[in-house]
Structures are given as structure tokens and as C-alpha cells.
């Protein structure tokens, strides 16, 4: 039997900090690529709920529109990509 893995997390000097929670990651992603700002700017309404923004992002990226921060959505958010916003250029 192999020993159970004991994962440790180390802060590496010089690393660009990417240790953020899934929620922080999602918020950053939705803002950076225009999913949240878009409605706020265009409709002059209060910010779209994260759920609606998530649905918009899921539609744009071709994954199931759950409105939830599920595993598939997180996977897409972690993929290498182009820096041009998806909406609201």
C-alpha cells in the first residue's frame, strides 16, 4: 500500500499570486472578460447577478448553462486563452 499523499502548499518566491478561491477566480474572470460590466454599462441597471453572468459566460463558451460555478465552468476559466474580452469591447 502506498502512503497516503500529504499535500502541502508552499508560497513560492517570485510566483505571480494565483492562489485565490474559486469564487474570487470566477469574479475576476467574469469582470475581466466583460460578462459583468456589459449589462451594467448597457442597461444602466445594477450589476447583473453572478448567476446571470455565469450563464452568459457558459453560453459563450459552449458549456451547459447552469448559472452555477460548477466544475466544467471552473475548468474553462482555468484554460489558457486570449486576453481580449468576450463581450462588451
Amino acid at each position, binding site marked *: 500500500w502506498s502512503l497516503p499523499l500529504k499535500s502541502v502548499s508552499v508560497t513560492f518566491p*517570485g510566483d505571480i499570486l494565483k492562489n485565490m478561491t474559486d469564487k474570487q477566480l470566477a469574479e475576476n474572470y467574469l469582470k475581466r472578460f466583460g460578462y459583468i460590466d456589459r449589462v451594467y454599462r448597457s442597461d444602466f441597471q445594477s450589476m447583473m447577478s453572478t448567476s446571470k453572468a455565469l450563464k452568459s459566460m457558459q453560453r459563450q463558451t459552449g458549456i451547459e448553462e447552469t448559472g452555477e460555478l460548477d466544475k466544467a465552468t471552473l475548468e474553462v476559466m482555468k484554460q489558457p486563452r486570449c486576453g481580449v474580452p468576450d463581450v462588451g*469591447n
Partner: protein
Amino acid sequence: YKTFDGDLKWDHNDVTYRILNYSPDMESSLIDDAFARAFKVWSEVTPLTFTRLFEGTADIMISFGKADHGDPYPFDGKDGLLAHAYPPGEGIQGDAHFDDDEHWTLGKGPAVKTRYGNADGALCHFPFMFEGNSYTTCTTEGRTDNLPWCATTADYNKDKKYGFCPSELLYTFGGNAGGAECVFPFVFQGEEYDSCTTEGRSDGYRWCATTKNFDNDKTYGFCPTRETAVFGGNSEGEPCHFPFVFLGKTYDSCTSEGRGDGKLWCSTTSSYDEDNKWGFCPDQGYSLFLVAAHEFGHALGLDHSNIRDALMYPMYVYVENFSLHKDDIEGIQYLYGSGPHPTPPQPNTPTTTPYPDPDETDTTDETEPTVPTTTQPLDPTKDACNLTKFDTITVIQGELHFFKDGDYWKMSSRSDGKLSGPFSISGRWPALPSVIDSAFEDLLNRKLYFFSGNRFWVYTGKSVLGPRSIEKLGLPSSIQKIEGSLLRGKGKVLLFSGESFWRFDVKAQKIDKGYPRYTDVVFGGVPNDAHDVFQYKGHIYFCRDRFYWRMNSRKQVDRVGYVKYDLLRC
């Protein structure tokens, strides 16, 4: 597909681009080539042309940068954001930026282009065998000068083909030292440095002095990335140190331990615990060609698509044999119309004209041997349009000739530029071997020079001299083959081999003094490992693989295109 609000597009079809700087990850010629191919992706399907400028302001200014690189949208270190580009317009609009914290490759691991050696600048072949051992990276084994090298075929012992790998001990790029190698140690602000450093710079690029004292001489260059070097972290450019100790445990290979993101890293000293020096391990990297093609889509006016297989989909996926998705084609054609090659090229129909052509004026009594007229389907291997690369392309009696494996085709210069052939080389020039590396016509004496390997033949009409060794012309014995030739005035011919060229005096039958010279010094902006070089209708053509770079009389590259479409007119 989607376009930007207001359908932003260029108001002219002759779009210009300029490459402002280079990534240390790849040889500059590979980067030039990747960008040229990326533009070609679009110009193939829409009537746009892309001309490279070497100075001044171009429509699309291309640059590499890290983190904060001068616009309001900083990059984010390795992975994550790869690049961005602005839609068409003035100023920064239309520009494309690439994150140089990424590992830029051709998509399948380090693309290591060699210099010097005897492989004419070929890419390293990994793994390769050398004295019974297999190597997956460049090595200094077998050398005393510490220069890393690699084989360019699978087995060095068998083929003996090799070249030197990127190393600051061999050359630098950019800077002001003309590519000179680093000098170690060197002094910078009173301190001595034994290796490349990022000190004194805010952009994170590694540099070195090319004399012993930068403070006095101020000459410097940027260090090319060795293919074994780590990325990011705090030891960029250093190789992994194996074994290394991390949290008391010894590691013999890269590990993701200690990280939540699963990325592989290594220590660059024997103990991470003591020195805290680390970086990310080299990986497959990102295809500069694919990312550039996507970004240039933005620069032409396309926004992100939600079709997963489209080039304009925002996420990166490596594709081996890339072809533009219908969605991308529809998008670009919505903006600029359908292009010169909107449909897949059709195979050339075989020539059925019997030879000799009655219209031909043949002053040398050299005619193509008669070939049987046929209406049978052409053997695909004998269709010039199916060939990706020719042994040589040259002009004989004003007509373009394409040579390949014992056959040749010719493009008529007088009528509608119809391609005829294949003809048998042995039928017309019986003394020649099947593979011709280069050929030129001495216009003064109506002699044809043919080169194959290190031998050459001279045809005058039907009489032939040779084979003779190219050493007889005054070329060094180390030359494996002559890859291109250019007539320069009366009685002078430039002969290209590897990254250099020599000037041959046809009358004196010897090489002029002052040669060889580096091709990229005299002919800037063309691949310095072109395998066909020739002059046609006032332009000089450098061919590499399926592509050609066309240079005008002012030595400016004014067009990059496909041999197949533009020269063969397939």
C-alpha cells in the same frame, strides 16, 4: 462569428505589419515564419495582402512583453492570458501583444533551431542518439567548449548531422552588439556577473554584456532561452538542478508538489529548502503560429466566436494540421469579401501538349523530350500542385523551372503562364542526377550550371562538363550543397548554402574575396535557411518549405506567399 461593434475593419486591403521585438524562446527566423504563416491563414481566404515593414508605423505592430508592457491590460505570468490584440484603427488599434512569460514554441515542445554545424540550420531532433545514449535535450557531451549541441536526425552516429543550440555563449539577439556572444564575467555598475541577468531592467528580459565591461563599452544583447531553462519563478533561464531537495525530500524530476495548480516545477539549485530558487519546467509550450493567427483575426476586425473549433474561439487548443474553420472564413469574408483562394485548390490538369512546343524558339537546340500525350489521370506524385517543396526552382531561358526527384516542370513566360510537365531531367540533361539542389543560367555564354550535393555540371547545349567538385570553384569542402543562386550583374552569381552565401565570378571561375557573407545580414527579413533562391521578373525569391519571401530591388520583402498558389498558380 462576431465582429467588433461598428464592424471595425481596415479601410485598405494592403495591410502592413512590423515585428518590434522577439521572444528569447525561438530563433527570430522561426518567429518571422510563424507570423508570416499566421497572416497567410487570412490572406488565403480574403483579398488582403500583408506586407512586413522594418521601420516606421505599420497597421499591425507586433511585440512581446511581460506583465505591464505599456498598455492598460497587463499580462499575468505563465499560462492564463497568452496574448491580446486590438481591433483595426489608428495608434494602438490593430496591434498584437504576446505574453513573453509564456513558453513560445511551435506547439510541440521547444523548437530548437541550430546554428553552424553541418545541418544548415535544421531543427534539433529529439530524442537523438549519441555514442549509445539517447538525448532529449541539447548536450555539451563530447565537447570541451561547453557549447550545447544536438543532432538534427535521430542518430548522430549514423548521420553525423548536428548544429549548435541557442546559447548565450554562441549569440545574443536584439541589443546593440549585432548578435555577438556574451562575455563572462562582465562588469555592470561595478558588479561582476557570470551569467545573464535581469538586473537593471524592469521588463524581466535576461541580458549580458558582449565585452568584459558594460560600464565602459555599453554593448549588450539579450540572451536566447536554452531549451532546458525554466520559466518564470525566480530563476528564469537557469536549468533545473537534479536531484534537488524540497521539504526534506529528494526529487530527480520536476514535481507539482507544493503547488495547488498542478504545474510542474523544479529547483535550480541542489536544495530548494536552502536557496528557494525555482522555476516552471519546460513544457510543450504554446504554438506562436496558432495564437498569432487568432490575434491577427482580432487585428483584422473579428471578435471572439462561440464555435469551439473556430480559430476565433477564445481558448487555446493545439491543433496539429490547422485549417481555418468555416465560421472564421465567413467572418473575415463578411468584413473583406471572398478572397483569392476561397475554395480548396484543384489539382492541376496534366499538360497534353506534345513537345516540342512549336511556338518555342530554341536557340540551343535544347528541347524537352517528347512525352506521350495522355488523357489518363495524372499520377498524383507527378502533379506539381501536390508537392510541398521542390529541390530547386530556377529560371532557364526566361521560364521558371521547378525540379523535384528526377522531374521538372516549367512555367511559360509568354502566354498565360501555363505550367507544363513533368519532364524527365535525364531526358533533357542525361548527365545529371535526379536531385538538383540549385541551377543557374550564365546568360553571357548560355551555359547552364547545375549543382547536386558537392558536385556541379555545366551544360552548353547538349555538351556537358562534369561532374566536378564544387571545391574547384573555390568553395570550402565543408559545404554540403548549394541551395540557391542569384545572378548579380554580368558574370557574377551569388551561391547560397546554409546561412551564408558566396559570390562566384563566372568568367574567372572562382569565388570573390570577402565571402562568405551571412545571408540575413545582406538580405534582411527572409529565412536564412531558404532551400531555393532565385530571381524572377525583377524580384528575388527565397523559398522555405511551401512558402516564398519575395524581395524587391530595394531589398525589402514585399510579399510572402505560397509557392503553390502564386508561382505554380495551382
